[in-house]
């Protein structure tokens, strides 16, 4: 842990030197202040996100890359409250706002005000549609489709699938589900025989699956959205059914369960989700924009995939009860920017 941090620190120091020499035309950002506007903190993913942003920000400040990197979270997960928070940030004179938004559209007015005041706005995860802001988006539909494509390689015979959805009415839930249904349309040996909302929470998923299982025929695979795989497995176990192939979502308890099943019965699956560290990527992208770099408005971040081979490493590096994470460095941001050009 400490070694990797030192390496990271050394790498970013080297980068600072490199940047200073190679891009002498780029503006200095050491007096710039960046704020994180976050709408929700009530789950392990968001906690890991805030932690990563804090670490990245503190390091950047001590390295003299920026003057401040402060995180603010609203208490009620409401767009009105977050809009007021953004207006405060404008008044406080931040140079850039890194934004995980409560709504893709409801914050557009506040975001426009920020742009008009000369503040750079970079949205990520929960992105905003206002054209003046930058967007670091995850291709959620591809994430859903990849699950079905993976199942097709493992279960060429096909069979019945159970779909665990997220929180009803949220953009991310619709996108992942759309991808899953596209995947099933292409792989017609599969049929989705049941669909429940697990709200990205293990206990909710466990309850929903326990309720629908008695009415389902044999299920060979479960497609999920993350944070719901462990609860699903528990519900199958409680019902005395064979454990199907459950695609997981990078939570530590899911990975631990996977490792236990692998050791006991050679269980094999795939786990994928967005790394909470995407906040650090957004931070560096904002820094690059402030430095005068020409950055396209729409960027894509790859999702973090864990396979049978990388399971042990992922499990070792994930704190107990948390979620698998990667922290993005400045050169990762540069790579993502270069890919988008």
């Amino acid at each position, binding site marked *: 842990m400490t070694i990797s941090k030192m390496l990271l620190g050394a790498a970013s120091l080297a980068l600072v030197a490199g940047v200073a020499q190679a891009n002498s035309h780029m503006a200095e950002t050491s007096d710039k202040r960046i704020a994180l506007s976050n709408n929700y903190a009530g*789950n*392990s993913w968001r906690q890991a996100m805030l932690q990563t942003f804090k670490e990245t920000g503190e390091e950047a400040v001590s390295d003299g890359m920026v003057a401040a990197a402060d995180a603010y979270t609203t208490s009620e997960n409401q767009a009105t409250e977050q809009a007021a928070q953004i207006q405060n940030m404008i008044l406080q004179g931040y140079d850039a706002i890194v934004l995980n938004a409560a709504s893709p559209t409801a914050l557009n007015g506040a975001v426009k005000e920020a742009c008009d005041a000369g503040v750079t706005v970079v949205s990520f995860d929960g992105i905003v549609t206002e054209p003046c802001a930058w967007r670091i988006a995850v291709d959620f539909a591809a994430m859903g489709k990849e699950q079905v494509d993976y199942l097709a390689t493992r279960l060429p015979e096909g069979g019945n699938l159970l779909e665990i959805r997220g929180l009803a*009415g949220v953009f991310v839930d619709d996108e992942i589900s759309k991808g899953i249904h596209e995947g099933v349309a292409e792989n017609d040996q599969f049929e989705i025989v049941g669909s429940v909302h697990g709200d990205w929470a293990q206990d909710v998923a466990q309850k929903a699956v326990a309720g629908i299982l*008695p009415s389902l025929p044999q299920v060979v695979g479960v497609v999920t959205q993350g944070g719901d795989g462990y609860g699903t497995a528990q519900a199958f176990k*409680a019902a005395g059914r064979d454990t199907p192939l459950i695609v997981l979502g990078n939570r530590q308890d899911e990975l631990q369960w996977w490792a236990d099943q692998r050791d006991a019965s050679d269980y094999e699956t795939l786990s994928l989700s967005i790394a909470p560290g995407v906040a650090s990527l957004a931070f560096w992208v904002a820094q690059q924009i402030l430095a005068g770099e020409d950055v396209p408005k729409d960027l894509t971040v790859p999702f973090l995939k864990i396979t049978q081979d990388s399971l042990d490493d992922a499990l070792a590096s994930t704190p107990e*009860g948390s979620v698998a994470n990667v922290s993005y460095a400045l050169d990762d941001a540069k790579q993502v920017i270069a890919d988008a050009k």
Partner: protein
Amino acid sequence: MTPLNLLAKPWIWSWLAASAAFGLTLGLTSGRGAGELAYAALSFGAFAAIVGLGQMLVITLGPGNVDLSIPATMTLAATLALKAMSSNPGTAFLGLGIALGVGVAAGLANYALIFLLRLPPIIATLAASLVYQSFAIWSNRGLRIKPPAGLADFATGRFLGLPNVAWVGLALAIVVWVVLERTVWGRMLLATGQNLRVARLAGVPVELVRATTYVLVAVFASLAGYLLASFSGGAALNMGAEYLLMSIAVVVIGGTSIAGGNSNVPGVWGAALFMFLVVSMLNSYGAGAGVRNVLTGTIIIAIVIAASTRRVRA
């Protein structure tokens, strides 16, 4: 008791609705999986029943009395208990003690806000819940710690064919019923809910009754949180979220008067089973989230109307 008398009981409607949802779900499978579904309903219904019993006592206190801090109390109690146990065997009772202690503290804090600052209970408990939730975030940063193996086995296990958590919920329901129907404290609670001023003039220590009720609801919530976290493999920061509306819904569907002064213990259990079964039924029939919410809402309104009209005629 004639069937007509039975229909006049407000609690019968939640049990009828639960049976109908059960029957309709099994209609889809032509009877297969009946035991499985009943077992799941009893397991998950137990958590709703436990928080519902607490909420019922508070609502019985009369108009304006409600505890909105239930989800945060559940989360805080479960988080602190599981952190203290840190998966070590033999610590189940230590964890239980901590959870119940959190419940007592939260209940006293809620009542202090209501009594000392004269805040309406809705505002006081909502504000307090933000504090409890923040404590839960601050104390463990959302990390899920596994319960000790023995405790997890108890929470997911069964006795005489019924889930252990359902036995706990059933025992609590009987205790609450006896207390309400057969003890002086229960009578004082009902009197306070029917008319606060009359009760006070009649010599009922109304503030003491209110204080113990707010402590009881928080203790029930913390017990539910402790059991739920042990059942589902750890405490999560959002674990209590769905129990806010759930706790109020099971009270209302169960036939307890929202105006206070009239409790209904069997109805709470019927409604808790119904809330699980109706979602299972709509999921089994493949209803989307929108349709499911609309239908659930409509059915709840129908049951409440049925229960209240019958009472007026009777």
